[in-house]
């Protein structure tokens, strides 16, 4: 059976990413371990995106609170505002917005970095210098992204809740104590854990797509821009798809 053009391309790409992920796994488990470079990447990846993810988290919390407020008042449940907002932040907005910002910031920079290293033969130069570039460049970055996004996302949730607290206090008064009580009266372990788990997958997807796009960059400097760009687009789409899967799974398990 002949598959039409775009379909074939899609399947080819999917296969290639799967193979790339396969070799990532092989290289991750077999020695030599690039611990130093991994720690360096964690620092760079985590530190670089912290301000941006923090800021967007803060704004989301604040805006969401202010927008929900009139509706909540009209239903006469204004007191439930912190609970409502915190639930949406922790379960959905925090992880997804952090992941999208992370994809834009880190996915593109990984794609561009590895892409330019590919077209200027730096990756080949590493290879002949006794360094497996798959281990040194790819494994370290993917693991760092996988580990850093959950941490960033938890930080972002916290900052978001602070934004929400300020949002509540613009029009009325609520003590920190009461706010926190309200939040934790509704938030369960089954809300927090799945949302943290899914960010590991988001981080992994962003890392692997960025590395894949960069590692197989072609066509000189033009290709580098393309790698960076398509890394962001593809990983953002994958984040949404994973999010959809995650909600199905928690639903099946009865955690929704």
């Amino acid at each position, binding site marked *: 059976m002949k598959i039409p053009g775009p379909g074939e391309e899609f399947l080819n790409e999917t296969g290639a990413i799967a193979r790339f992920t396969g070799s990532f796994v092989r290289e991750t488990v077999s020695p030599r371990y690039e611990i130093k470079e991994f720690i360096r990447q964690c620092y760079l990846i985590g530190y670089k995106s912290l301000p941006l993810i923090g800021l967007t988290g803060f704004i989301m919390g604040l805006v969401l609170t202010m927008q929900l407020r009139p509706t909540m008042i009209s239903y006469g449940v204004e007191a439930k505002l912190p609970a409502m907002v915190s639930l949406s932040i922790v379960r959905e907005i925090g992880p997804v917005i952090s992941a999208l910002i992370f994809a834009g910031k880190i996915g593109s920079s990984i794609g561009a970095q590895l892409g330019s290293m590919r077209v200027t033969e730096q990756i080949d*130069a590493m290879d*002949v210098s*006794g360094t497996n570039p798959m281990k040194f460049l790819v494994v370290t970055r993917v693991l760092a992204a996988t580990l850093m996004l959950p941490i960033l996302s938890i930080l972002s949730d916290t900052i978001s809740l602070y934004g929400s607290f300020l949002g509540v206090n613009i029009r009325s008064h609520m003590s920190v104590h009461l706010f926190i009580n309200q939040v934790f009266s509704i938030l369960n372990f089954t809300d927090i854990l799945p949302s943290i788990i899914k960010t590991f997958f988001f981080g992994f997807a962003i890392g692997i797509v960025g590395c894949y796009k960069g590692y197989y960059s072609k066509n000189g400097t033009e290709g580098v821009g393309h790698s960076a760009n398509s890394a962001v687009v593809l990983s953002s789409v994958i984040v949404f798809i994973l999010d959809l899967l995650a909600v199905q799974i928690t639903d099946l398990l009865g955690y929704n």
Partner: protein
Amino acid sequence: MDIVSAKYQNTAYQTGEPVITISKLKKQFGKNKVLDEFDLTLHKGESIVVLGRSGAGKSVLIKCVIGLMQADSGIIDVLGKDITTFNHHELDKMRMRVGFLFQSNALYDSMTIRENLEFPMRRHLTNISAKESEERIIEALTNVGLAHTVDMMPAELSGGMQKRIALARTLILKPEIILYDEPTTGLDPITGKEISTLIVEIQEKYQTSSIIISHDMKCVKTTADRVAVLLNGKCHAIDTYDMLEKSEDTLVKQFFE
């Protein structure tokens, strides 16, 4: 080989033992047959320049020799062992003894010159002391006349200087064989000449053998003991520069015009 001559200026060809023997090397990408039964023998102390048109497969040839590309078939014997069957670990051991100068220099642009030179050393010689590492860096940089750039970033240097740093990085492991991919391309004639002279100096100082890829006839003349012409995936002719220059073969002649 269409042209055979008994007279060579550098007797390394006659006296030296073979360090690289390539036989019946084949490599194709899809339907594009780049190398088709290519044969070449490099002897100890000898330098061979490979001539060929752009896209003839010169870079592919030396990338197969260093193991960056996998040959489809044929034998590539480097320092007594066929590398086509090597695993990653065996390749690494071979690459300590064989240096490679990239066409685009391939300096790590996020690292200083010192870190660039340190990288292959740290990786290959894991237990080298900090003092010896520093000494080697300075020695390699002095060889190329750029000891003062040690703390600069690659982007701060001109193209010719970057090429020399790349050469220093190749030299740092004291390789027995060096493969040069177009060492003078993209440089002005004067800088190109400097690099060619440097290659010859290094050759003499460290007794390395080398395969040099070039279109630059001045560089070819300066550096070559023998010249091989790569055409249609085969070694079309191999001889000294002087003999090839006098060749009647029209395909060979076009390179010398």
